[in-house]
């Protein structure tokens, strides 16, 4: 499987990363090298193997469904690049 420039642009779009035109061929080469390297996994027999998703050898813990934190909007907004009152501000989304 080999990525073409159009696929590189599509992935960048999905990842929300703007690419310049000269970045595309470089990334195409690098991503194809990585995908070529991981290709060797296709030789492993994984029939009937349950996938391992986590590092923890235990069941996921549950906690009480209760509000235990909050009520400090100024702390939450202290790092906001732009704010209006107690809201994060972004460019207009709906015309």
């Amino acid at each position, binding site marked *: *499987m080999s*990525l073409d420039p159009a*696929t*590189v642009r599509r*992935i*960048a779009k*999905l*990842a*929300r*990363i*703007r*690419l310049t035109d000269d970045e595309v061929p470089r*990334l195409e080469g*690098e*991503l194809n*090298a*990585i*995908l070529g*390297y*991981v*290709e*060797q*996994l*296709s030789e*492993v027999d*994984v029939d009937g*193997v*349950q*996938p*391992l*998703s*986590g*590092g*923890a*050898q*235990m069941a*996921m*813990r549950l*906690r009480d469904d209760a509000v235990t934190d909050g009520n*400090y909007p100024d*702390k*939450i907004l*202290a*790092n*906001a*690049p*732009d704010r209006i009152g107690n809201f*994060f501000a*972004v*460019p*207009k*989304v709906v015309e």
Partner: protein
Amino acid sequence: MTMLDMSIAEALAALAAKKISAVELTDAHLTAVEALNPRLNAFITITADQARAQARAADAARAAGDAPALSGIPIAMKDLFCTEGVRTTAGSNILEPFIPPYESTVSARLKAAGAVMLGKANLDEFAMGSSNITSAYGAVENPWQRDDGAKLVPGGSSGGSAAAVAARMAMGATGTDTGGSIRQPAAFTGIAGIKPTYGRCSRFGIVAFASSLDQAGPMARTVEDCAILLGAMSGFDERDSTSADRPVPDFRAACARGVQGLRIGIPREYRVDGMAPEIETLWQSGIDWLKRAGAEIIDVSLPHTRYGLPVYYIVAPAEASSNLARYDGVRFGARVDGADLIDLYERTRAAGFGAEVKRRIMIGTYVLSAGYYDAYYLRAQKVRALMLRDFNQAFAKVDAILTPTAPSAAFAIGEKMDDPVTMYLNDVFTVPSNLAGVPAMSVPAGLDARGLPLGLQVIGRHFDEETVFAVAGALERAAMFTAMPAVRAGAGS
């Protein structure tokens, strides 16, 4: 011996005996930081005022009879741990303005144990790298020098932590290890470092890279110092859903236990092509040392070892692409304005992330995308399960496993940088323990022909860091590694 050459254990004894004060110890280290950081670039942020205040508080507390486990010990904090009120960058431009309103659990525990934070240590951007050259705040220089005088990398991603400890700018440091980021820099700088079992240290407040692999751990100049630090860093935290609700053993006591009667596994698959002959020789020395100390050496097989890197380079980018989706220029971090919201996201992320981070986000996005998920991500998770099975089968026969830490000594800035895959090969011996979640430690064990340090790695069973410390302690006593880097505080250079 100056204060700067003391181990943490020795400094704690000197503090307890009132031979030195925490203020003196901190001032000596801050002076070292001031002298060496312009060259080594080990710290992104230096918190001198806060450190002096913490040292004064430690002296006052000790005078009042209260001296917790690390009272007055100056350490470096990898700049991946959120520290309340102190800028936390993760080595990235996108977090350049970020001042966390909260403290990570690990740094809070160290603070509560009386440790003094000298500053935030440099690292590869978002901990993605094996050389510390991907940091947006500049590369870190390894304090060790090679015979040709080339500037060497300290390893990565915890390269600033490693350089600071090796150069005597800090007595210990925190690191994080997703695929070798504590152990490989420890080996490259002649210090010790342990990645504990997944779940041992809380991940709360650590900037996430790959959540199923990330684990915090200590770096220090002796095995015992790592044990002291890990004891303070470990423990259950309800704010991390994968934190292990288990008691924290006495790691320090385990260091002196010895290896009499222990069974040590030697995995044949770790003899890889292109490994430096000196590493092969050092590995054999490690085997001989443990045998002489009373251990039984047993050949074991970890048949899926060679698939560790390809699994890692699917799983880690996949998790990273999800974790790093939060950096969108809206709630925190840097923003680049755009015509609309999508434009803002794309411009913010294009400007905020470096090349290696973009590469990994894109690989991760691709392997999780519709049509490719099964072929890449799901298959990688299945091979990951086989790697865990390999370890479980080996640990039915042995108590610990001995391997080299890295396939080479530290390389020069500019070497191994032809393509991403060549750089990734650095992690061939360290990645499998992250995938399986088992603890693993690097111990400085010798020098190569060019005078550079090499490390041996001890891998243990889940939650059996005590045996890892016991074996690492035995290796340390046998290796008698006393070499010091050319660039260090007090060396007069």
